[in-house]
């Protein structure tokens, strides 16, 4: 895990440095004189060599200091911590929604192979996977905000302030995020379930006279979940990437909008901090998925 994170740290730094744009110009506006730009670049430490800048940043990261925003001057960790719970909530609800809908659809589809239900699920899953997240988000807004008037198109209200409004605000972004996951999980869980259902223990269970639903939902499901879980873990990173887009569409104040605003303002410390934190989250999620294998399949042991 440590080498992966170190690689991420280097990659993030290099990517930001290679990106076009000048933070000093972004801060001072286009009318800044060369003298003023030079002074601000010096204050930001941008006149130092790359290795020097990297060394300073790395030392900070090791000590838990991600630096301060060029624009707001606030500590990057403070900015991220203010936004991270919002994104994590969105990602978790999106994941649960996607997993429940996707796995259920996949299992139903597998247990009724080549039926109309199976075809319908396959088409819907393809739709979910192919639909660009931002486009689906806009369609949701048009339906639920403009035509039905049920939900606000944008606007985040803190849970502590008004729980009802909070959940009204979280429904559409979570749906937009979950649809892709549901689509891909439905496809994978169907394939996995079809394979599991052909295994001997399922035949045995059926031969013992167990109800079909018990065989599928109790015995077969758990065994078919391992490959699905691998996909779920891999998709979490994609989901966080999708959150950047979804947050933008729904004006949701998570790390996604923080990242996009920071990019447009060339606020490099914030960009570096957000990418690092998100990458760490993805690495941790994959670790959790690996650990979950042992629970799902007791034959798996990590030395």
């Amino acid at each position: 895990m440590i080498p992966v994170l170190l690689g991420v740290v280097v990659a993030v730094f290099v990517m930001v440095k290679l990106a076009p744009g000048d933070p000093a110009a972004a801060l001072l506006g286009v009318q800044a004189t060369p003298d003023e730009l030079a002074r601000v670049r010096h204050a930001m430490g941008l006149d130092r060599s790359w290795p020097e800048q990297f060394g300073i940043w790395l030392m900070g990261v090791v000590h838990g200091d991600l630096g301060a925003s060029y624009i707001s001057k606030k500590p990057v960790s403070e900015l991220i911590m203010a936004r991270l719970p919002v994104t994590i909530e969105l990602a978790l609800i999106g994941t649960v929604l996607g997993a429940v809908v996707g796995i259920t659809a996949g299992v139903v589809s597998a247990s009724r192979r080549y039926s109309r239900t199976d075809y319908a699920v396959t088409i819907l899953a393809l739709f979910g996977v192919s639909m660009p997240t931002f486009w689906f988000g806009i369609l949701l807004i048009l339906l639920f905000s403009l035509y039905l008037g049920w939900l606000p198109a944008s606007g985040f209200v803190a849970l502590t302030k008004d729980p009802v409004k909070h959940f009204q605000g979280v429904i559409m972004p979570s749906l937009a995020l979950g649809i892709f996951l549901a689509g891909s999980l439905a496809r994978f869980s169907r394939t996995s379930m079809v394979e599991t259902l052909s295994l001997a223990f399922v035949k045995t269970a059926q031969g013992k006279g167990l109800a079909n639903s018990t065989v599928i939902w109790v015995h077969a499901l758990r065994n078919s979940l391992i490959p699905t879980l691998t996909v779920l873990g891999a998709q979490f990173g994609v989901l966080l990437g999708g959150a950047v887009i979804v947050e933008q569409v729904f004006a949701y104040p998570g790390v996604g909008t923080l990242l996009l605003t920071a990019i447009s303002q060339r606020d490099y410390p914030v960009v570096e901090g957000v990418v690092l934190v998100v990458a760490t989250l993805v690495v941790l999620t994959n670790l959790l998925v690996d650990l979950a294998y042992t629970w799902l399949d007791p034959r798996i042991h990590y030395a």
Partner: protein
Amino acid sequence: MRAGVRSFVFSLVLLVVLLAAPAAHLASAQSVKTGGTLAVGLDGEIDTIDPLKSVTIVGFQVYTQIYEGLVAANPTLDGVIPRLADSWDVSADGLTYTFHLHQGVRFHNGKDFKAEDVQSTFTKIMDKDFGSPRRPNFTAVDHLSVVDDSTVQFVLAHAYAPFLTQLETMYIEPSTPGIDFSTTPVGTGPFKFVEWISGQHIQLTRNPDYWQAGQPYLGGVEFRPIVEPSTRVVDLQSGNVDLLNAVPLKDVGTLQQDSHLQVWSVAGVVRDHVGFNNSAAPFKDNPNLRQAIAWAVDRQTIADQLLYGLGKPAQIPVPETNWAFTNELNNPAGYDLAKAKSFYDQANPKPSSITVKVSPTYPDEVKMAELMQQSLAQIGLDLQIQQLEWSTWIKDVVSDGNYQMEIVLISGGIDPDDFYYQWLHSGEVFNLVKYSDATMDQMLEQARSTLDQSQRKTMYTQIANKMLDDAPWSHIIYRQSVMAGTADLKDFVMTGRYDMNFRTVWLDR
């Protein structure tokens, strides 16, 4: 006779207006409802709330609720009106401006507004280490003196006609020590700062001690960044917000048809141009090539189709609403490919291909380039379009002068000097067309140091004509500024640069 009829009609109109005005005002005053929070959808997150540091339009729209200057721009954006200064005197030589400050004004922290606050604000702006982007606006000021608590004097180093309009950008912060204006803004404005949760909202509440009695009518204002244009429009249509600071041009027609909404559209200060690098081949010392391209721009099609009719063909930088605007132009460029071909044939050198640099950050400019590409192909000139990320575009075009041709949109201020000097005077940072002409330099210098407006108008007409003759750049379009709000938003006056003055705005609900 005709003059007599015109005079009569004018008098009649004036009479009707004078009779109607008090009645209308009275009707409006009687029905004004106070309270309520105005929700404003912004097309981006503000950079900072400090008026001495912010460089974005959204920042301007927010901090102008909290802060005020000595003077303010008038709604037509061609002059200034008093704000924190009741009046001012200008010395005969145009070097000393004495401002008489309004008495009884208090900052939101309870401090009385005095001349010392003007001085401390000015000192901050001019401090190089503070790094205020407003500093270049005041380099003509030699020094500032506090005469007494209610009088300040600005003494200029040389006569500088745009000074008053530049002063509009100086928003006064209290001299109280220890305030971090980036997190806790304190001004004299109609609304007080409550909170700014990044990405979520900026909340302001009515200033009950505002010095203009009875104002503002609103109980508060909430600004919400909604970057995605489609979401912003649906938020307005569904009543989730009351006002949008920016409307996608393609949606203007739909919004105009909605009886629950209102759309404001006024002549803006933003205009598009095609610029030539006058310091390098093939455009250097090659006026025929520059004219060939100027005559190959189909301005009307761009206005009608690319901008959905929300633009007008332009020839000169100053918009029609500005007092320096003129139609007395000797050589305006039209769309005439035969003429363009004739200029192209006389060009020396006569390149077969030219590269134009545009940025997809401004997609309309890319479309304009594509349209010009088709026109220029008809006269045998191949236009290569190079799209660059915005900051790279700025580096190549503005900083390094590494380009042949560019298309971009730029904004102007109030004084005609804003539209000409920085763009055409030798050596200016924003002279992105790298144009250098001693006669033009002299004309521009004279125009900014002359105080009489009618004389200046004549000078700017001469400048406009010289500019069209030399064609260092060619203007394409004046853009309309468009905003939209709900029908129950009352008495909002829109300006061409998207000011948000909510002092007398109210909600009819």
